[in-house]
C-alpha cells in the first residue's frame, strides 16, 4: 500500500520515545541516589522510644522513687467536630475563650492533623471525669505518660528530680543521644546515676504520610531497636529513718546525716527546710519550682553536703586523736581548767565548766567538753617539738584533718558536694603577713571554730572512722545496681574501698570512744541516752557570725558494734544538747530498735513542732504574704489591671539567709507571728475575698 514506509517511521518514533523514557528512568532510579534519601526523609519517621527509668529502692527494698502513669489530654484539632465543648470546659475548669485559645495554639504549633497536648498531666480527679465522658469528645485522647513519683514524699534533695535538658546539658552530653525536650536527672541521685537510670533508648521507625500522620511501622519493625528499661538502684537509705529525720527537723534550719559505718552506706540524709519532691513532677512543676527557687529559706539547698558549719566541740574527739597519735598526751593527761584558757595572753577561751578536776583526764575533759583542755592539746600539736615551726606542725595537723575527711570532698554519689574548710597555711600567711603566726593565733581551731568548716556529712563520716577505729568507706547511697556488670563494678568500686585513716592505734580510739560514751552517760548529753544502747557521742555548740549558736551533735552506736554514725546540725538553736542531741538520739533509737518507744513519742512531736526558724526568714515570708494581699486588695479597689509596682519592694527586702540568717531588722517587732512559715503561700486562705 502507499505510504507503507511511513509505518516504519512511526514505529521508529514510538521505539525512540520509549527509549528516551527508559533513559530518564535509568537516570532517576539508578544514577540519582539523592531520591532515596529524600524519600526516607519524607516518609520515615524516627521515633525515640523512652524506656522506663530505673526505680530507686531503700535498704528494705521499698521503692522510694518510682514511675507512675499520668495522662496528657491530647487533641487532634481537625477531628473535634461534634465535641461537647461546654462539657469539656466544665471538666477542665476553663471558659470557651481559653478553649479556643488553646485550640488555636495547638494548630499553630502542630497543624490541625496531628495530635498536640491540650492539657499536660491532668490531675487524677480530672482524669477520672474525662475518662468516663470521653465519648463526648471526639478528637480528644488521654495519652499516658510515665512520670516520676516519690511514694514517701521524702528525701527530695537526695533523690533529686528530672527536668527538661537545656542547651548546656546537650553540649556536655553530645555522645549520649539526648535531644531537645528530653528529660534527664537534674540533681541528686537522679543526676549522678542518670546513665544507669535512663536505660537505653530504642528507635522505632514508622511510615508517615504527607501530613505527618503515622501510617504504621516501617518494614514491620525490621530496623527498630528495642528500648531497654533503666536499671534499678538499691540504696542503703532507710526511708522511715529519713522521714523521721525530716519530721524532727521540721520548722528548723539544719541537717541530719546517718551513715552505717560498716559499709559507708548513708541511712538518712535530711536537710531542712525541704520540699515534697512530688511537687516537682506533674503539671504544676514549673510553678512549684519557681516558688522553691525563690524561697529565701532555700529548700532546694542540700545542707547535708553543702551547708558549711563550724564543727565546734564536735571536733574535740578528733583533736584528742591527733594528740594521742602524736604521743603528746596519754589518756590520763589532765589539765587544770579554771573556767577559761588563759595561756595565750590576750586570747581567752572560755569554758562552760568551772569546777576543779573536770579536765583531769582525757575522758573527763571530753565528756565535759572542756575548751581549755582541747585548746591546750591543739597548741601542743601545733608547737610539737618534732617539727621545726608552728607552720610545719600545722601542716602535719592539717594532714590528719584531711585524712579524717575534713577539708576535702568525700566524693559521695551526689552532685555538688562542698568540701568544708581546713585553712591552708597560705591563708594564715596572708593574714599575718608571712609565716609569723603561732599556735595562739589559730587557737580556736582546736575547738572547731576559727575558720574550720565542715559539712554535716563530713561530721557523720568522722564518726564512722572513730566507730570503726581507723577507717571509713566513702559515704554513698547506692549499694548495688540491678544487673551489675564489670563496668559498673569498676564505677562502684570507689564506694567499696576502705579508707585507712593514718595509723592511729586501737588503744587511742578506745580511749576516745570511752570518753564519748561518757558524754551520754555522765557528760553533756545525758538526755540522749537510750536504755540498753551504748551511745558514743559529742555535743557541739558552734559560735557563728550570723547569730545564735548552732546546735550540733555527733554520735555513733552501739559502742561495741557500731552500725550507725550520725551528725545533726540545727542552725541557731543554741546548745548542742538541747536540740541536735535528742534528734540524733531518736534517730538512733529508730534505727537500732526499728521503732521509737512509746514514752518517747511525745518527744518526737515536741521536737518536730519546735519552731527555730530565724526571725529574719519569718519576716521574709510575712512581707511576701502581705504584698500578695495588698496586690489583691488593689485589684479589687481599682477594678482594673493589677499594678505590680510592689515587686520592687520584694527585691529590696530579700537577703541571703545563709549569709545572715539572723539579721535583726529594726522592724522585727511587728512581724506577724506565724505558727509555721514554711507552708505553701498559695494554700493560705485569702483573708479578703477577691470579689464582692
Amino acid at each position, binding site marked *: *500500500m*502507499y*505510504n*507503507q514506509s*511511513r*509505518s516504519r*517511521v*512511526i*514505529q521508529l*518514533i*514510538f*521505539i525512540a*520515545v*520509549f527509549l*528516551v*523514557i*527508559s533513559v*530518564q*528512568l*535509568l537516570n*532517576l*532510579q*539508578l544514577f*540519582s541516589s*539523592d*531520591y*532515596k534519601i*529524600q*524519600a*526516607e526523609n*519524607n*516518609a*520515615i519517621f524516627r521515633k525515640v522510644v523512652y524506656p522506663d527509668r530505673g526505680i530507686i529502692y531503700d535498704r528494705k527494698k521499698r521503692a522510694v522513687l518510682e514511675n507512675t502513669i499520668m495522662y496528657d489530654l491530647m487533641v487532634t484539632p481537625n477531628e473535634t467536630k461534634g465535641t461537647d465543648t461546654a462539657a469539656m470546659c466544665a471538666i477542665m475548669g476553663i471558659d470557651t475563650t481559653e478553649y479556643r485559645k488553646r485550640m488555636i495554639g495547638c494548630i499553630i504549633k502542630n497543624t490541625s492533623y496531628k495530635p498536640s497536648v491540650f492539657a499536660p498531666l491532668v490531675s487524677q480527679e480530672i482524669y477520672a471525669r474525662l475518662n468516663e465522658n470521653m465519648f463526648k469528645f471526639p478528637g480528644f485522647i488521654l495519652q499516658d505518660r510515665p512520670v516520676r513519683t516519690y511514694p514517701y514524699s521524702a528525701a527530695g534533695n537526695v533523690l533529686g528530680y528530672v527536668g527538661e535538658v537545656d542547651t548546656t546539658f546537650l553540649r556536655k552530653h553530645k555522645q549520649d543521644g539526648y535531644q531537645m525536650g528530653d528529660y534527664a536527672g537534674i540533681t541528686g541521685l537522679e543526676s549522678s546515676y542518670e546513665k544507669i537510670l535512663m536505660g537505653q533508648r530504642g528507635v522505632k521507625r514508622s*511510615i*508517615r*504520610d*504527607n501530613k505527618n500522620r503515622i*501510617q*504504621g511501622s*516501617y*518494614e514491620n519493625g525490621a530496623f527498630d531497636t528495642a528500648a531497654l528499661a533503666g536499671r534499678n538502684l538499691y540504696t542503703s537509705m532507710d526511708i522511715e529513718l529519713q522521714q523521721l529525720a525530716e519530721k524532727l527537723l521540721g520548722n528548723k534550719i539544719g541537717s541530719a546525716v546517718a551513715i552505717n559505718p560498716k559499709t559507708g552506706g548513708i541511712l538518712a540524709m535530711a536537710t531542712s527546710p525541704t520540699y515534697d519532691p512530688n511537687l516537682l513532677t506533674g503539671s504544676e512543676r514549673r510553678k512549684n519550682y519557681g516558688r522553691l527557687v525563690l524561697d529565701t529559706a532555700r529548700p532546694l539547698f542540700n545542707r547535708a553536703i553543702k551547708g558549711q558549719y563550724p564543727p565546734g566541740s564536735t571536733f574535740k574527739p578528733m583533736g584528742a586523736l591527733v594528740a594521742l597519735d602524736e604521743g603528746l598526751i596519754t589518756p590520763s593527761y589532765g589539765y587544770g581548767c579554771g573556767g577559761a584558757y588563759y595561756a595565750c595572753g590576750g586570747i581567752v577561751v572560755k569554758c562552760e565548766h568551772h569546777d576543779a578536776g573536770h579536765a583531769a583526764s582525757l575522758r573527763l575533759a571530753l565528756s565535759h567538753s572542756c575548751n581549755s583542755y582541747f585548746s591546750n592539746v591543739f597548741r601542743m600539736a601545733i608547737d610539737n617539738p618534732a617539727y621545726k615551726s608552728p607552720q610545719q606542725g600545722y601542716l602535719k595537723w592539717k594532714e590528719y584533718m584531711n585524712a579524717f575527711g575534713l577539708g576535702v570532698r568525700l566524693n559521695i554519689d551526689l552532685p555538688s558536694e562542698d568540701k568544708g574548710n581546713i585553712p591552708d597555711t597560705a591563708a594564715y600567711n596572708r593574714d599575718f603577713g608571712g609565716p609569723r603566726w603561732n599556735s595562739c593565733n589559730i587557737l580556736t581551731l582546736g575547738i572547731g571554730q576559727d575558720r574550720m568548716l565542715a559539712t554535716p556529712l563530713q561530721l557523720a563520716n568522722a564518726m564512722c572512722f572513730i566507730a570503726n577505729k581507723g577507717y571509713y568507706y566513702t559515704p554513698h547511697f547506692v549499694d548495688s545496681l540491678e544487673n551489675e556488670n564489670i563496668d559498673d563494678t569498676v564505677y562502684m568500686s570507689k564506694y567499696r574501698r576502705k579508707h585507712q585513716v593514718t595509723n592511729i592505734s586501737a588503744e587511742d580510739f578506745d580511749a576516745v570512744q570511752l570518753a564519748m560514751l561518757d558524754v551520754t552517760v555522765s557528760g553533756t548529753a545525758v538526755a540522749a541516752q537510750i536504755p540498753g544502747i551504748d551511745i558514743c557521742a559529742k555535743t557541739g555548740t558552734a559560735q557563728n557570725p550570723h547569730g545564735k549558736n548552732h546546735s550540733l551533735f555527733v554520735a555513733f552506736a552501739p559502742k561495741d558494734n557500731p552500725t550507725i554514725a550520725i551528725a545533726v546540725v540545727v542552725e541557731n538553736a543554741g546548745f548542742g544538747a538541747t536540740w541536735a542531741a535528742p534528734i540524733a538520739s531518736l534517730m538512733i533509737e529508730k534505727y537500732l530498735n526499728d521503732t521509737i518507744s512509746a514514752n518517747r513519742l511525745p518527744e518526737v512531736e515536741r521536737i518536730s513542732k519546735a519552731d527555730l526558724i530565724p526571725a529574719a526568714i519569718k519576716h521574709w515570708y510575712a512581707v511576701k504574704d502581705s504584698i500578695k494581699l495588698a496586690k489583691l486588695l488593689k485589684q479589687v479597689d481599682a477594678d482594673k489591671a493589677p499594678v505590680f509596682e510592689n515587686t520592687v519592694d520584694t527585691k529590696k527586702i530579700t537577703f541571703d539567709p545563709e549569709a545572715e540568717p539572723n539579721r535583726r531588722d529594726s522592724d522585727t517587732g511587728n512581724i506577724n507571728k506565724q505558727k509555721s512559715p514554711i507552708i505553701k503561700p498559695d494554700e493560705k486562705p485569702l483573708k479578703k475575698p477577691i470579689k464582692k
Partner: protein
Amino acid sequence: MSSSSHSSISKGVDWLVIWLYAILVSIGILCIFMVEYNPDKFTMGSFFTFNTNYSKQLLFAGICALLAIFILLSDSKLYTAFANLFYVFGILLMLATFVLGKDINGSKSWIPLGGGFNLQPAELCKIFTALALAKYLSRLDTDFSKTKSQAIAAAIALSPAVLSVLQHEAGLALAYLSFFIVMYREGLPGIILVIGFSFGALVVATLLIEPNTLAIILTLVAAATIYFMRRQVKRDRPLLIIIIAIWGLCVGIQRFAVPYIFNHVFECYQSQRIYSAIGKDYDCSQNKSAQNEVANSKTVKKPDDYNVRQSKIAIGSGGILGKGFLKGTQTRGKYVPEQHTDFIFTSLGEAFGFVGCFLFLGLYLVLLLRIIFIAERQRSAFSRVYAYCIASILFFHIVVNVCMTIGLFPIIGIPLPLISYGGSSLLTFTVLIFILVRLDADRQMVLR
C-alpha cells in the same frame, strides 16, 4: 447482521491485544490498590464494597468487560455506517457540557450522571473523532494529498480539542494533536510534523537559553545557511527571502511570541509547570492573570513543582528492583498528589523499580507495535486509519503521562491508559481497543 449471528465472537479476534488489555487493566487495579492500601483497614472484602477506588475500578473493569463482549458481538459495519452520526453526537455532548457541566477540580468538562458518577464527554469524543476521521479519510472521493482534504481532516480532529480548551481541559485537548500522526501516515506532508517539532524545539530553547544569546545563535545559523547555500541563493533569489523570513519568524517567536504567551495567555500555574519541566523557575509577577488577581486583591499562591518533585522522589527511590508490592513508603505516605489518577505510574516505579517500569513500558510498546501491525494488515482504509488513531492516542497518552511523572514534560492532566483510576478513561480506551479488535476480526470484509 446475519454474518455475526452464526459465527463465534472469538473468530478472527486478535488474542494478543485482548491479553495485553486484560493484563494492563489488572496492573491498573493493583496499582490503585497499592495507592490506597492501609494495612489497618484492609480486608479482602474491601475489594467488593465499592467505596474504595480500587473496588470501584474493579466495578468499572467489569462493566468494560461486558461492553467489550457487546462490541465483539456487534457488527463492524455499524461503526462505518454511524461514524459521522456518532461524531455529531459527541460534539453535541461536549456542547451540552457547557450547560449541564459540573465543576470538578476547576474544569467544567463533566456531566453528572447521578449516583456519584460523572461523564467526561471529551474522553468519549476521542472514540467518535477516531471513527469520523477514519470515515473521512477512507472515503473514495477523499484525495488526502489535497490541502483542502487535509484541512477538513484537521478540522475533524481539532474541533473537540477547541471545545476542550474552552472547558479548561488543556490536557485533553492536547490529546487530539495525536491525530496528526495518523494524518502523517495517510499522506500529510512530513514537513508539517518537522515544522511542528522545530517550533517545539524553539520554544524549549527560548525557555532554556538567555534571549540575546539565542537571538545571536539564530542569526549565526541563518548566516551560515546563506553562506553554504550561496550558489542556490544566487540562482534563486526568493530562497534568500524565505531564509530571512524564517529567521525573522524564529527571532520573533523567541523574542515576543513565547514571552507573550507565557505571560498573557497561560495562567501562572501553567507557565510554572512548563518551566519546571525544564528545571527552571517562573516568575509569576510577570503573569497577566496573576497580576489581575493581585489587582482584585486575591492572594496568589505561588505554585511550585511539589507534584513533580514528589513524583520524581517516589520513582527515583524505587531503585533497580523497587521496594516491593505495597512497601512503597512514598505511596503509603500519600506524598504524590493525584497518585491514583494522573500519577499512578509513580506507585509502580516505587514498588517495582527500573526493572518493573521497563517491563511495564515494554507491555505498552508491544501493544502499540501490535496495533500498528494490525493496522497494516487491514484491507479497508477505514480500519487502517482507525487502528492508527488508536495507536496514536494510546502513544500520546502514555508518553505524555509517563514523561510528566519523570519530569520530562509539563504537568497536564492526562491519564495513563488502562491504568489510571477513572471510569470515563477506562471506558473510552476499552471501546477504542475493542472496536479495533472487532474491525480486525472482520478484516477480510471490505468496509467503507
